[in-house]
């Protein structure tokens, strides 16, 4: 795998950012886009545009086929059993909201428990929070350990006869911990509890096999997977999509609409009300092809090497404290720097063209537990190199110099 060739496929790196070469270390937030994805959006709008699924004219039929092709590409990419188990949403956030809302409506009541973890991104906590008020449910949080991991034991300890659903991250966007989602799913299923996995950080970096993992729901954020913004995917087992009520009402999701009542359409239309993000869906097909061409195993290997290298150089830097040291870790390096607040780090690094994230990374529960209001985070993508990490370290030393005078 030649990283320079891969990097050349991302037009953002052709331009200087404030007179610097861009060192992009914010892929956990959102990844950059390869040319093929950008081109696909342009081509669709300039040569092929039409709305999907409604009209019978040539362009409409072609657009519908393109749209549905992506569904099949995604199905194969994550090894789902059926293309109808792939629902397009406006983002992973909407995917989780969809499940929280419909599952909550149908299956949850007073005193029922939802089990999350302390690692969760706000998007896998806030949607469930609404059910506290509307349904009187309780939310429990499985604790993370001193390495920043949530273990199977920690999940098991928090399951009670009242636990009705478990919703967990695949890969923590702060500590980088990869959760044993397959084992958690086995355990949960042995007690008849369904499992939702927030795959925002897992999907861009790890090989996915829905049938092997066995989880009931898996939420994906396409813009973190070298794809367009405004698009997410909910993988859900067919048995759930069939029994859960519709989420949003509108055109495209109905069978028959009468004054006295409405019947709803079949899958996948039932969950795709209104005009969807058509161009994005079609362009996301190119993201999947891009990932397939390189091979997710190769990406994983490359990112693992870089993560280890990053940890190594940051550990050598005495002023840096890494957050979490999970045994099974994704390509996220969160840290603090002695005497320098994360936001000051981010501003100073930015002057060198080094783009990182600073703040609570939408994980306030985690930061509160660590007693930190903010951390800095460097996160990796397929286009990163050891050079990028060296530049990060150099800029961190510059921060120290400015602050120590």
């Amino acid at each position, binding site marked *: 795998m030649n990283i320079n060739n891969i990097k050349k496929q991302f037009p953002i790196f052709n331009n200087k950012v404030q007179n610097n070469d861009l060192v992009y270390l914010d892929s956990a937030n959102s990844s950059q886009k390869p040319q093929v994805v950008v081109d696909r959006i342009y081509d669709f709008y300039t040569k092929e545009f039409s709305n999907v699924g409604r009209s019978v004219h040539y362009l409409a039929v072609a657009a519908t086929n393109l749209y549905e092709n992506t569904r099949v590409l995604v199905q194969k990419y994550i090894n789902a059993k059926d293309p109808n188990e792939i629902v397009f949403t406006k983002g992973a956030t909407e995917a989780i909201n969809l499940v929280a809302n419909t599952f909550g409506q149908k299956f949850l009541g007073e005193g029922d428990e939802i089990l999350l973890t302390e690692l969760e991104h706000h998007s896998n906590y806030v949607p469930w929070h609404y059910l506290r008020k509307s349904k009187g449910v309780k939310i429990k949080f499985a604790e993370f350990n001193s390495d920043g991991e949530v273990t199977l034991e920690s999940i098991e300890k928090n399951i009670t006869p009242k636990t009705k659903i478990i919703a967990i991250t695949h890969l923590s966007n702060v500590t980088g911990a990869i959760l044993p989602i397959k084992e958690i799913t086995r355990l949960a299923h042995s007690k008849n509890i369904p499992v939702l996995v927030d795959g925002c950080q897992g999907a861009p970096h790890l090989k996915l096999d829905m049938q092997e993992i066995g989880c009931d729901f898996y939420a994906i954020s396409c813009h973190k997977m070298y794809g367009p913004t405004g698009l997410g995917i909910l993988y859900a087992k067919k048995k759930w999509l069939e029994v859960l009520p519709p989420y949003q009402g509108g055109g495209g999701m109905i069978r028959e609409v009468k004054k006295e009542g409405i019947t709803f359409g079949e899958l996948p239309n039932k969950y795709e009300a209104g005009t969807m993000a058509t161009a994005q869906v079609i362009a996301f097909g190119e993201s999947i092809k891009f990932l397939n061409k390189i091979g997710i195993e190769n990406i994983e290997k490359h990112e693992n090497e870089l993560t280890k290298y990053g940890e190594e150089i940051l550990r050598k830097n005495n002023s840096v404290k890494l957050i979490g040291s999970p045994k099974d870790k994704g390509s996220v390096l969160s840290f603090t720097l002695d005497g320098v607040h994360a*936001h000051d780090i981010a501003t*100073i690094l930015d002057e060198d063209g080094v783009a990182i994230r600073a703040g609570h990374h939408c994980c306030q529960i985690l930061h509160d537990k660590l007693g930190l*209001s903010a951390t800095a985070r460097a996160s990796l993508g397929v286009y990163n190199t050891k050079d990028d990490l060296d530049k990060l370290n150099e800029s961190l030393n510059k921060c120290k110099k*400015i*602050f120590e005078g």
Partner: protein
Amino acid sequence: MDLKDLYQEIILDHGKNPRNLKKSDNFNKDAKGHNPLCGDKVHIYLKVDENNKISDIAFEGSGCAISMASASIMTDLMKERKEVEVKELVDDFLEMIKQNPELKSKILGENEKTKLMSLSGVKKYPMRVKCATMAWHTLTAAMKNANEETNTDKFE
């Protein structure tokens, strides 16, 4: 852009050793401020006497060098100020950060102006403006003894 404008000596000094950073026991007005974007927090305590003068001021909080320095410099500056002066200084500071090249207030000495102007570096860093202004908005809320937390999302 120049980092030296943003991280001037005065800022670094006040950021590292903030003045008046303590919980005041003897206060009669207070307010909290919060920047939900980054999690920075400030809690301002005031002792306002019967002549509407700030006889004591302190703050608690955590945040970046800019927000800590801003709260530190501001609290130093507000001691023994009357309510009308506080309002004038807050408005003048916020206008300077927003658009004015200089501070206009006549009640400030040259030394005090220099200190305050050291925060003007944020003008070139739009993402950091709220770091500098949060304490000032919170002071206004504290003068009114506001119960509700001052939230940077609501700033102009």
